[in-house]
């Protein structure tokens, strides 16, 4: 890692923006005083492509992006326990197509909210410490996966409230898990990364029967035969410090540590010997002033660009379709000075949302020429 070996150089993107697209601020909302840690658009249901959800403090709030830059607040949920601080939120779907929102935070309890009925659908208890990220399986949106400080990753069925699998143990993470993401096409596969500086790729192929079983389970969820998956199929050390966000980009992985850059790398697994392989860093997307942890990036549905905020409240939008990497634009505003914890790109990338440490939500819209 320290030295890039000959012939394995990666292409570094230039920080001069191409300005292929430009964005302008169209709205700013103050949700509260508490820092906002997550903002996510709904990609699962075409009716709600404009709806996004934020998490911060003990509140989960749903908004709608209107055409003219306006934002309307739709619903808000607050945990009765003031101690709760939500770190992450994700959209999910019931079997009948009901949109769900799953959120988790410092208490380690995952709240599954049926936003169509405005009720708590399930509260998933099991993590021994705070939950750092929740992601939904896009091909089967009843399945969510959670990354926790308790060094485990868990797979849940939000419909039945069952903890299906626990990914921890001998080959598991050695410290807080900060981020997880499902492989876009391989339904069995996901990647997780965390404070132990590694990115691990896991497979649940052998355990898929349990996943199927979870859908028909009618007994008490606590009686479900939850299985431990102790060994990932691959452990990559492409970073040397905390890895706080990773996303699949096809068969490649985008991941970031606290080194002011996002890496695009290819995990090369050895077919016959599980657990072994190499990682080949292909591209580097520099992001200045981004060396604190828990800053997460986001992509649009088509994965054509990635947006990431930094400590100074600026947003870097990189084109993912080009090689070498091209910076589409850098978004800055003289009043945006706070750490942007997470961004959200709308389905087509025309809107970028940023949620900040000071509890504000910024909306940027693309300028159509």
């Amino acid at each position, binding site marked *: 890692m320290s030295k890039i*070996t000959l012939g394995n150089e990666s292409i570094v993107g230039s920080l001069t923006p191409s300005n292929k697209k430009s964005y302008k601020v169209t*709205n700013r909302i103050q949700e509260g005083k508490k820092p906002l840690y997550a903002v996510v658009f709904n990609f699962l249901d075409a009716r709600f492509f404009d709806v996004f959800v934020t998490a911060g403090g003990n509140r989960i709030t749903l908004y709608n992006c209107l055409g003219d830059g306006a*934002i*309307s607040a739709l*619903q808000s949920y607050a945990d009765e326990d003031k101690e709760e601080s939500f770190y992450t939120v994700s959209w999910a779907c019931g079997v009948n197509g009901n949109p769900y929102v799953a959120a988790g935070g410092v208490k380690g309890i995952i709240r599954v909210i049926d*936003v169509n009925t405005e009720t708590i659908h399930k509260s998933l208890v099991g993590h*021994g410490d705070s939950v750092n990220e929740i992601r939904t399986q896009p*091909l089967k949106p009843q399945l969510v996966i959670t990354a926790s400080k*308790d060094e485990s990753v868990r797979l849940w069925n939000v419909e039945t409230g069952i903890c299906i699998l626990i990914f921890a143990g001998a080959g598991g993470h050695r410290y807080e898990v900060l981020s997880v993401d499902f492989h876009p096409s391989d339904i069995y596969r996901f990647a997780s990364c965390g404070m132990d500086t590694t990115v691990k790729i896991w497979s649940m192929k052998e355990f898929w029967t349990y996943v199927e079983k979870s859908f028909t389970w009618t007994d008490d969820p606590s009686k479900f035969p939850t299985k431990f998956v102790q060994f990932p199929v691959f452990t990559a050390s492409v970073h040397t410090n905390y890895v706080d966000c990773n996303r699949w980009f096809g068969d490649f992985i985008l991941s970031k540590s606290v080194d002011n850059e996002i890496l695009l790398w290819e995990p090369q697994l050895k077919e016959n010997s599980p657990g072994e392989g190499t990682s080949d860093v292909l591209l580097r997307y520099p992001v200045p002033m981004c060396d604190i942890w828990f800053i997460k990036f986001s992509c649009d*549905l088509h994965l054509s660009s990635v947006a990431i905020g930094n400590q100074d409240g600026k947003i870097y939008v990189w084109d993912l379709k080009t090689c070498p990497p091209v910076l589409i634009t850098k978004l800055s505003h003289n009043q945006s000075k706070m750490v942007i914890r997470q961004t959200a790109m709308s389905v087509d990338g025309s809107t970028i949302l940023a949620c900040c440490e000071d509890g504000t939500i910024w909306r940027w819209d693309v300028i159509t020429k």
Partner: protein
Amino acid sequence: MASEASPSSSATRSEPPKDSPAEERGPASKEVSEVIESLKKKLAADRCISIKKRIDENKKNLFAITQSFMRSSMERGGSCKDGSDLLVKRQRDSPGMKSGIDESNNNRYVEDGPASSGMVQGSSVPVKISLRPIKMPDIKRLSPYTTWVFLDRNQRMTEDQSVVGRRRIYYDQTGGEALICSDSEEEAIDDEEEKRDFLEPEDYIIRMTLEQLGLSDSVLAELANFLSRSTSEIKARHGVLMKEKEVSESGDNQAESSLLNKDMEGALDSFDNLFCRRCLVFDCRLHGCSQDLIFPAEKPAPWCPPVDENLTCGANCYKTLLKSGRFPGYGPIEGKTGTSSDGAGTKTTPTKFSSKLNGRKPKTFPSESASSNEKCALETSDSENGLQQDTNSDKVSSSPKVKGSGRRVGRKRNNNRVAERVPRKTQKRQKKTEASDSDSIASGSCSPSDAKHKDNEDATSSSQKHVKSGNSGKSRKNGTPAEVSNNSVKDDVPVCQSNEVASELDAPGSDESLRKEEFMGETVSRGRLATNKLWRPLEKSLFDKGVEIFGMNSCLIARNLLSGFKSCWEVFQYMTCSENKASFFGGDGLNPDGSSKFDINGNMVNNQVRRRSRFLRRRGKVRRLKYTWKSAAYHSIRKRITEKKDQPCRQFNPCNCKIACGKECPCLLNGTCCEKYCGCPKSCKNRFRGCHCAKSQCRSRQCPCFAADRECDPDVCRNCWVIGGDGSLGVPSQRGDNYECRNMKLLLKQQQRVLLGISDISGWGAFLKNSVSKHEYLGEYTGELISHKEADKRGKIYDRENCSFLFNLNDQFVLDAYRKGDKLKFANHSPEPNCYAKVIMVAGDHRVGIFAKERILAGEELFYDYRYEPDRAPAWAKKPEAPGSKKDENVTPSVGRPKKLA
């Protein structure tokens, strides 16, 4: 290019230095660096192109994927009736909040009422939303814990789990940012790369540069500089590359590297490496793979089923074929050499067999002490030994002639073994005892021709002298019949004095040839070769093993070990002729006499070692123990068994002594007893003898096992056993007094049900489900076995978190239940505990048992005294000074993490 400027020694990787030690010939360094530079550029360009290609490919795949996402979300959206959903309704109804900011930075101020949101403009304060939130009812959070994996037995640390040598960044919750938990010196060691493998691009540069400029020292020096390696490395690599190239050009002749061409070592590699002979499972997590192989000095006799002379094992059974008389060639052989285990096998009753075997044992086995480390060699000699015995004992009850041939076979083997031993001996600095051993080996050999035969062999003669003298000594005993038979054989064949072995070989060979001509159509010499060729090394070794297990019973060998490879008849043939052939083919031929091992003995051994070490390397780098440990003064807090600064128990490692352990026995030196896993014979003085308790039920210190903090072992103790199953398989006869050993609870996992719950004190706690009486065994404290060094490192982090599950086990290991363990790890500390822990030796392993200190009622929480060393104990674990201050008060102030949970 940059070559003029760059100084020679301070070469950067990108700018290779120009000046190189002036070689008379060879291209100028400038030229070299230019070539390298251009190659490098080419590589970089290639890399760029390959990245682009891969990205494009990925993009294509992605397009399809995201398209399908889009479709499925469209479907999801379309499937629901519009308007019926609450969220849709909300979407429609809720008023929009217009921006507080526009491009000109004239921010508008928006404020909402409590129920509805409107907007006011004109301030830099952003829009505030206020929607009456829906309450989520409070759910009590769990006490924090780290996900842990249940272990019902201890486990050695997985190799990549070490924090030793790995940087760990610890995030201090209270103090703010991250701390790097490693010593600077360690990172320096991390930088040291041991033997980097050559990467493809480096190969490319080497190949191309040397191709263009030719092989010369200056070029090599340039390359070495550029790749920051040594010239010799580069040179060696170049050689390898050229060879590879040749191979690839000459086409692939490696196609036939199938399993069958492996030798026994290769085939057994995974077995030897992965099978734990102590736990009798593959991939044992406790003792790990690649353990030292310990072969017991005492082996069971070959299995010999009752034989029915007329029972054949199939169409190809040698009995059938012999009877049918289709092979006249075999008639004389049978008569003369009496090889047929037909006669021998049938007549030998098991009792005779074993008695004979036992009689020989003391003589032969000590010889095996030869190689305590070379398992490979040892295995061979083992198998030979077995073979030899078999042949000998097989023939016991046969006619003198038969006997003679049997002896002769034995002798041949012996010769070879002796010969084989010689190099080994020199390698391993064997003692004189060895030489005398070889006497006993040679006990079977006796004829004068033996000596001649040996003279022809070019092995070192020192030990052969012994053998010879041994022979002459022994020949008084067994000489006559053997000589007779030898002569009888010689009479039949053209004897060649100088190469007697060959001549002996010819005897069956020529006979064989009759047969060969009949149904194989081969000539004498070719036929002989063919028989050899037909037996692949693996098959030969399998045959060896077969003889070891079944004796000279070709039916059983063929059926159990060589099914699919060889028929009984073939095995029989091989058996009979290989006996005669003995050592003829030396290296490439006959495994049964071990000569192949002998010939390439040195290589063989080296191979073995290399294979092992490669295995180790692949399995992880953790075993690098190079590293200095400066901060050893600091010890993390660990639980202990006793308060005294007593010596910890010693970790037991089985010894490989082949004779009764002497002063050099590693067990003895280490201060442990020999166990049943040691190689030494049962008579070893250093063995723990177990107990003979009859009435005490092994529950008091009267029982030697109990007194020594050991559990009874059914294999060792006289009266302690386990009755399993329904008794249909036979139960050892009861001694009348309802004796039942009570000192095997860990072994049998006879533990109490322990429940995990929220502690009354703090964090999690362990509770007992059923009431137990005093001194009852409750369960085992299991965890990862880690080294003390590792424990110190881990402990540093655990101590920061004030949450340690470390438990001192013995002088070598610490138990860490942090990530793996059982529920008893949650039992809290108390200075007035109701339980106690005890390290007990169970079947060679130290384990921690938790026992009731007093009567404990159902549902009570379990506490035991962690017995931290007084100067290192955390505040809450210190013994209360004043009698008034209770443990609880010490504990409760700790916030967040369950401090005393450990």
